[in-house]
């Protein structure tokens, strides 16, 4: 059994005009030490998924159904006191914007020591020693001086290093990193990502990396999920998805990378924009933007308009697409006829 298993996760936001479904039927798993990427456009539900794992979604969001099993325990419905023992201890988080993540009126040392003290019976002196060691691990210059500094005295890159050090303080099983490099300078991004990867490998920490940077995903993760409008639409080994994406949306994403455009011509893009969650199109949520709704022979694939596609397996990957399902079906029937 995997370390973390998420099944049929259903998260909604209770708004005055009715519930809006932010996550539908999200399933994935993570093994010990495995690195999983979650990609998708803004608003696809990546961050909601990350916050839901530790039940940190803010009201009016709530978990309407599904299960999150971590190391044999069900996290959904767990009392807050018990969940607190897991947060920051066995599953820790790295947030997007290091400028906003640290409390401006508390020193780095205070913010590290309190985390250790929340989970272990430990003296302040020992906690400081551990904090110092973690700051050394994240390669911060003059770490002992940092403990007594306030966040505003550190640059963005250094703050993200501090946050990584905090995430590693209690040797967690999983780190959830929600776009950990988006807010940083490009030159710092690679450094921070390399550091995170190195530390995860060294300590055998599982990583859930939420990003919209396909380059980072391909370098860091072993498996990936592609999300669209609150739903997982493709998942499988990262390399296979990047090299041979099945779902038209994933194809569009990869095609939209600047490297994929012909020099001198416009960058490729997926036409249209993601629908808002409270007004999803019928059938496949991607069909209004999809170039495969019409078949090669000119006929319309009606299922794209009417039915929410289920997962079909193609090689090691799974994709939720009627077109892919049809292609697999077509390949399978001649093969059976030949037998």
């Amino acid at each position, binding site marked *: 059994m995997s370390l973390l298993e998420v099944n049929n996760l259903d998260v909604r936001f209770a708004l005055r005009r009715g519930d809006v479904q932010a996550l539908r039927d999200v399933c994935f798993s993570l093994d010990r030490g495995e690195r999983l990427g979650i990609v998708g456009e803004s608003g696809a539900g990546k961050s909601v998924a990350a916050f839901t794992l530790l039940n940190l979604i803010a009201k009016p969001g709530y978990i309407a159904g599904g299960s999150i099993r971590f190391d044999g325990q069900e996290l959904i419905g767990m009392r807050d006191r018990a969940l607190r023992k897991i947060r920051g201890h066995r599953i820790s988080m790295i947030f997007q914007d290091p400028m906003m993540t*640290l409390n*401006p009126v508390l020193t780095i040392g205070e913010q590290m020591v309190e985390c250790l003290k929340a989970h272990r019976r430990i003296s302040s002196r020992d906690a400081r020693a551990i904090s110092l060691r973690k700051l050394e691990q994240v390669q911060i210059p003059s770490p002992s001086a940092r403990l007594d500094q306030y966040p505003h005295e550190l640059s963005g890159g250094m703050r993200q290093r501090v946050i990584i050090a905090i995430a590693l303080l209690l040797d967690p099983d999983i780190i959830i990193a929600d776009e950990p490099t988006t807010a940083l300078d490009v030159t710092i991004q690679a450094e921070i990502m390399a550091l995170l990867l190195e530390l995860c490998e060294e300590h055998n920490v599982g990583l859930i990396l939420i990003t919209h940077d396909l380059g980072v995903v391909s370098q860091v993760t072993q498996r990936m999920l592609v999300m669209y409008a609150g739903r997982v639409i493709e998942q499988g080994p990262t390399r296979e998805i990047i090299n041979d994406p099945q779902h038209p949306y994933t194809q569009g994403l990869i095609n939209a990378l600047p490297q994929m455009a012909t020099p001198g011509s416009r960058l490729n893009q997926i036409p249209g924009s993601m629908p808002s969650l409270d007004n999803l199109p019928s059938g496949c949520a991607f069909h209004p933007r999809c170039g495969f709704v019409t078949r090669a022979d000119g006929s319309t694939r009606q299922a794209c308009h009417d039915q929410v596609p289920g997962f079909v397996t193609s090689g090691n990957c799974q994709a939720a697409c009627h077109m892919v399902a049809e292609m697999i079906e077509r390949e399978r029937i001649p093969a059976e006829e030949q037998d």
Partner: protein
Amino acid sequence: MIAFLIKRLFHALLVMFVISVIAFAIQDNLGDPIQQMVGQSVPESEREALREELGLNDPFAVQYLRFAANAVQFDFGYSYVFNEPTTDVILRHLPATLELVAASTFLIIALSIPIGVYSAIKPRAWLSRFFMGVSIIGISIPVFLTAIVLIQLFAIGVSWSPFPADTGWGAWLNDLLTTDGGMPAYGRGDPVPVFGTWETNFASLEGLTYLVLPAISLASIMLPLFIRLIRAEMLEVLQSDYVKFARAKGISPRRIYFLHALKNTMLPVITVGGVQIGTLVAYTILTETVFQWPGMGLMFLDAIERSDIPLIVTYLMIVGLIFVITNTLVDLIYGLVNPTVKLTGKPA
């Protein structure tokens, strides 16, 4: 730190200069001082001689410089009514006002923080809604009305029986509407002397009872304001990433609310608070009048009624000084609480 203090001292001097010009201009334009001093029978020639002798015919700038030179030595002249130095009169009335303001400030701090924090943590609880509703009423009712209602309820007492007294619930409701009164609501009672002209109400239980109603009515405007301010700030801080990150670290809610969030909430509250303490001193005019509290506010109103110009000017100068001092102190405290502010005045 030293640089900050010097800079603030310079600011303070500038503010005091402006206040003194305005105060002196009032003195110069509120009627003819000679008329206040001499009788009707004194002929015009003698009046003119007196004017010349007192320097009242000198240009404004010369007169102002003379006034300022004396003012620097805390000599603002003699009160017409009390016939003694105005500073002595003020010093005699200052302790009563400061004690009233201190009691109100204590009430405001002791009540606004817990109520504000509670109503931010549980914004939907009926108690929070109740506090918010009451605070709107509190802000809208003027101080003197609050004071009069308090006097009626707790000093005089009321006995209403609008409900049928022969039924159990009617009697209970009537009991609820009936108050005994008996709280002192006139003057300071017998304050205990501390040193010099300073007498205190804080030294005895009886003295404290005299403070209760005036302090509540003085606090009645500021308290709701601060409850709402703290609530609004706290609500915003609770949405911040660093609070979410603290949750993700597994920190207990109590520590998150009262350390992570409250410390950030208090930053703007301290700034506003500094200005409001000064305003509180100004509001004492109303409160002291209703309760006949023998402080500076009551004295000032008296001075206006009797055209005691030197006393009016001195009051303006002293209140200005209190404003300047509290604001400087608040800036100092702010610098100590907020690590991102360096007291040199430059952002780090």
